[in-house]
């Protein structure tokens, strides 16, 4: 396998929206590629417009980084055309949890500053 990109450092950086949504979709349940794509599109209200090409590139990186694994066994009675099923690893769960903490801290920081949006004449 190619040299791993370290996730320790990058976990402090914000995740790309597409990556975040993919992790989120796989955290809900193991699934095959197209179902994950649909889940991402639905969850992001179409704001993350994933095409198969870019989706699988993201997935490849997540697998290389050890956040996602490909399941070797297929479910019984499954349509073989869908391709492989994928599962979030423990590491994937922890990166997602990190992201959650990061976002929560961000929200808390904004709330703390009380920068409520003001509209109209003061």
């Amino acid at each position: 396998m190619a040299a791993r990109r370290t996730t320790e450092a990058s976990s402090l950086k914000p995740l790309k929206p597409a990556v975040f949504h993919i992790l989120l979709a796989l955290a809900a349940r193991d699934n095959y590629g197209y179902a994950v794509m649909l889940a991402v599109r639905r969850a992001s209200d179409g704001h993350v417009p994933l095409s198969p090409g870019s989706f699988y590139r993201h997935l490849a990186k997540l697998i290389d980084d050890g956040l996602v694994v490909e399941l070797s066994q297929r479910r019984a009675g499954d349509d073989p055309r869908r391709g492989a099923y994928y599962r979030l690893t423990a590491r994937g769960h922890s990166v997602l949890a990190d992201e959650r903490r990061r976002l929560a801290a961000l929200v808390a920081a904004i709330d703390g500053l009380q920068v409520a949006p003001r509209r109209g004449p003061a």
Partner: protein
Amino acid sequence: MSGSDIPRTIADRLYGVLLRAYPPSFRDRFGAGMRYAFACDREIARSRGWRDYARFWLLTIVDTLRSGFAERSESKPHRSREKTPMRSWFVVDWRDGWRSLRATPAISALAVLSLGLGIGANSALFSIYNGLMLRNLPVADAKRLVLLTGEWTNPIWEEIRARQDQIADGGFAWSVERFDLSPSGETDPVDGIFASGRMFEVLGVSAIRGRTFTSADDDRRGGQSGPVAVISYQLWHQRFAGANDVLGRTLSVNRKLFTIVGVMPKGFFGPDVGRSADVILPLGAEAIINGAESSLDGRLSWWLNIMLRLQRDQTIGQLTEQLRGVQPQIRAATLPAQLNFDYLTEPFELEAAPSGRSTLRARYEQPLKALMAVVGLVLLIACANIANLLLARATARRHELGVRLALGASRLRLSRQLLGESLLLAGAGAALGLLCARWGSRALVAQLSSVSNSVFLDMPLDWRVLAFTMAVSAATALLFGMAPAMSMSGLSPFEALKEQGRSASGERRGGVRQFLVVLQVALSLILVVTASLFTRTLFSLTTRDLGFDRGPVLLASVTVTQPAERRLDVFERLRDAAAAVPGVTSAAISFTTPTGRAGWNTRIVVPPGSPLKGRELASWINAVSPDWFKTYGIRLAGGRDFNSHDRIGAPRVAIVNRAFARRFLKEGDPVGQYFSDQGPSGKQDSFAVVGVVEDSIYRSIRAAMEPTMFVPFAQWSNPRSVVSIGVRSAGAPPLSLTRSLSDAFGKTDPQASLTFLTLSSQVDAALTQERLLARLSTFFGGLALLLASLGLYGVTAYSVNRRRGEIGIRMALGANASTIVRMILNRVGVLVALGIAVGTGAGLWASRFVASFLYGFEPSDPGTFVLAALVLSLVAAAAGWLPALRASRIDPAEVLRIDA
């Protein structure tokens, strides 16, 4: 790979090709899932209409190529390297190209627009060409269909039908018809066919509602379900609003009732390309519709087309052999009773007919090719324009590119970036072009339809059209992208940095630009010449003296149901009723009308030793009632008109035109002379000439005035069931008489079916092709002029800009404004003169190809060329004037200060 069991469509295969952008290892891991996702997304996009579908494809192509090549560059050994801006040449090139196009949005938009128009026009004409000439019929295994050349009688078809399964894999006969769906009064014409029972089975098509008819329905009294009809998808939607209970409803066809038993699928238009079979009746129903006048037993009625299906592994040669083998038996079984000419002695000929039969093909093949050449030239001019534009930008960027070269970028990489720009432009142009093509091809085909002939052409965006558009776009990108990319090769970083954006050596590249302008002027000249040739042809045809008045005449085509012996009486009563309508000056009956579709000719008997032979012996013939010449405004030059005494039993008389008298009669007064004609059965009839009329057009507007004889309608022993009643209006527009005429006809004979048409629209319909050529070539000629003037303007403005310093010095040294203007315009003049010279040479050579479309003058007509050159010079002067004026307003002090 697990995805191998997916049914592969063309789209899937195309995606497979796209996937090759990814490294093989990536494809092995994710290929199956990607294919699945693609197929699902494609289904969704397709169900949302073609706009979403097109967007989906564009997105898929861009996304797949982008991420594929990005993946490739990352999976190389240096994958772990930090991201650099030059991660992949491919991505960077696209991005840089996009950025530089965005930097000048107006120019880029203009370029995309002119490309879109150019590519769109080419694709539009190609899709018509494809629909008319190349596309297979949308039926099962169209490759095995063959057509029996010529038209055939029903007895011959019945003999072939009896042998169809021994010699071939089935066959069918059909005839092209125009049916009347109105139950009474004025007709409601639709296109349809009579088809033998097994047509649907042989073609391998089935109905989407109900059933098709079969041999059991093909009976002269109607089959078990009575008389049945199958209708097209279009008719189902237009006349029945797509109603679900359409099956079992009755349809009045030519005033007879038929039961609808089936609706054909959307893409099915019958065996004829260029028309749509909206109502399909069994061949046997011809006996129901035409009654005693049925052609089904006519051994001399040649009205059927016959198509056969080859057996598997049978060649067309083998089938021809077998058909010729049974020809003697077929001939013996169908020999007509009275026979004095060759009957079925020519051996049967078959032609491959995977794309069906079409009468439009022969008529429009040449005009289509001419128009494709025209739009090809327009695209070339657009290319030259864009090349000029990119070249100017590349020159302006010499400094930037020089810096990059000095910093170590390879020449190849810089050229690739410029080429990326061109490809982006061409891609956007192609996308726009496809939209234009879809709209344009439909608008064009709509132009082909005339009042008497509706043209229907199915033109889907199939792989041929897509491939053509892609090839044209790629070729254009290469054409206009090459010049700037090549200009990079001569660039030395040293010089470019020294130049600081203004240079003397830039003028060298100005040479290329000037060459492009000369090319544009030359090409535009050809197009302007073509346009004026076509327009003059149309003008001389529309203003030609046809020998009759087209303005005030309304034509009523009347079909009656009475048997032959009572028809004359009915027609005369209808004519009297029409003549009595207020606002009508006169009314007259005739077999055919001037420029009408029907023609009737005969052979005139000449004394032995006459120099006339072959086709020179033919004369047109028309059967007309009294007042016919007055109604149509054809002047009687001598003798008398027919009158009520010229009936059966009275001596046979004729009126001839001057051309007839010149060719067939003795010198002197034709009135009182006798002549004879000989019909197809060999019988000779003798006529006394009672009158002479001035020449008039019989059928073709392009033809010379041909010999024509007129016989009294009342002396025609066996009138057909359909005649034309011409009505001359006293002054009101003829169409305004329609209502009162149809009332008058309805009172006289409620059974008669009527179709109204003005004589002038019939004449116009005969000029459809000429009008189309003239309009389109004028449009494209204008477009070419516009593009060329833009090009000329650009080059002049650019050169003025570069010569600001020089002009400033000249002005400082005493040159006045008019000297400067003259200097600039002189330069323009030289370019234009060169272009006109080249264009005239090329135009003289090219105009031979359009000679057959012209009327009334030679293709090398000097007046046309002079006019075109004049128009071009004027446009060029206008295009050069603005920059010249700007040059004359240069303030020398300012220029010299900046340049110092």
